């Protein structure tokens, strides 16, 4: 299990339930490596500001890592982590390798409209 403070997706059922019960879902699929940890930290920081988005992580090498690894949107990816943004269960954006807070925020604002009032 990833050592992050994010909610982990551990089973295929969990994955399907998360997509079904949340309109906006961001999943970071990676390892506890140098390119992945900064993305988990950014997600953790943004959770409070984007309460209309479900932030989750998933082990790249775990039993359900293939659910992200084999997405057509990730076909050309060769850098961890694979970060995928879902809206109503459909992939709307995917990024590969390390991302900054600004890059993540830009996608969240573009794909998930206005952030929730705080």
């Amino acid at each position, binding site marked *: 299990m990833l050592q992050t403070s994010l909610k982990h997706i551990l089973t295929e059922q969990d994955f399907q339930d998360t997509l079904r019960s949340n309109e906006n879902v961001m999943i970071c699929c990676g*390892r*506890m*490596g*140098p*390119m*992945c*940890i*900064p993305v988990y*930290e*950014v997600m953790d*920081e943004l959770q409070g500001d984007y309460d209309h988005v479900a932030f989750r992580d998933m082990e790249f090498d775990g039993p359900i890592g293939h659910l992200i690894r084999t997405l057509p949107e990730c*076909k*050309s*990816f*060769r*850098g*961890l982590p694979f970060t995928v943004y879902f809206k109503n269960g459909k992939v709307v954006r995917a*990024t*590969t*390798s*390390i991302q*900054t*807070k600004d890059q993540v925020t830009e996608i969240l604002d573009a794909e998930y409209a206005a952030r929730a009032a705080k």
Partner: protein
Amino acid sequence: MTWDGNPNTYDVIVVGAGPAGLTAGIYLGRAKMRTLVLNEGPVGGQLVLTHEIANYPGVESISGYQLAATMKKQASTFGCTIRSNVAVTNFDLDGEVKTIEVNGKETFCAPAIILAMGGRSRMLSVPGEQEFKGKGISYCATCDGDFFQDKDIIVVGGGNSALEEAVSLTKYARSVTIVHQFDEFQAFAHAIEEARANAKISFIMQSTVTEFMGNGFLQSVKIRNLVSGEITERAIDGVFIFIGYVPNTEKFVGRVQLNSGGEVVVNSSLETNVQGVYAAGDSIQKKYRQVTTAVADGTIAALSAIGHLHNHRANQLEKAL
């Protein structure tokens, strides 16, 4: 020290939360200084980019992430406030009280500042590099090496990281070609010997990659021979870039003294040329960049800043009398 009650007023502001900045935070917090640590990226800096640290005295083996997390916890426990992923948008280092604005909206002030912004991996900055980052271009062999099983890859660089990572990448790749701009390597002799002895590794010297090309993912590169000027195109599956680090000091050009490499010039107390401004860690002018040297810098800068604050306080009392 005395506090005016303004929540944005501190005794010391540390810019950077790598090992130098966090160590400064630990010492300052423990000395009961109101301390704010600001960091543009995630806490830990380059430290979290290290998978395993086996030469930190007193700790046999630990991941960079764990060590950084422990340092952060220590600094917080001693009362230090840490704000990560914020952008320093303006600052004034002159005068007795210095100000730092973050995210264009919040301003903090303190009589002492410690600059510990660290460094970042140097990029080639050639066409295609941004486009193919994570799609064939990588800066981390341990992270992405296994995407290149039985593939042909290039490693750019000639220092210890480049040669050591080239050897480690031969576990996955069919072939590894090292492209280096000089006619000899800057790495330690043992690293050069190990690379030269590896049958999967070949070398293109006095050359540099000038462009990355592909369709959705990296497929080829252009390589320029720096002696003849000849440019050749080479089909390739991946490129790993290890060409050193650059200090994160761009914002401070003209505000504190930097050397020609952009490193902050300091004295043995880690004072910069601006009174009340200190610097520590990988962004300062020094020869060796290790976690241990960054930690030592953080300690020295914090103790120097505390000395400065005592003088500042004495001056304020004298003026008040």
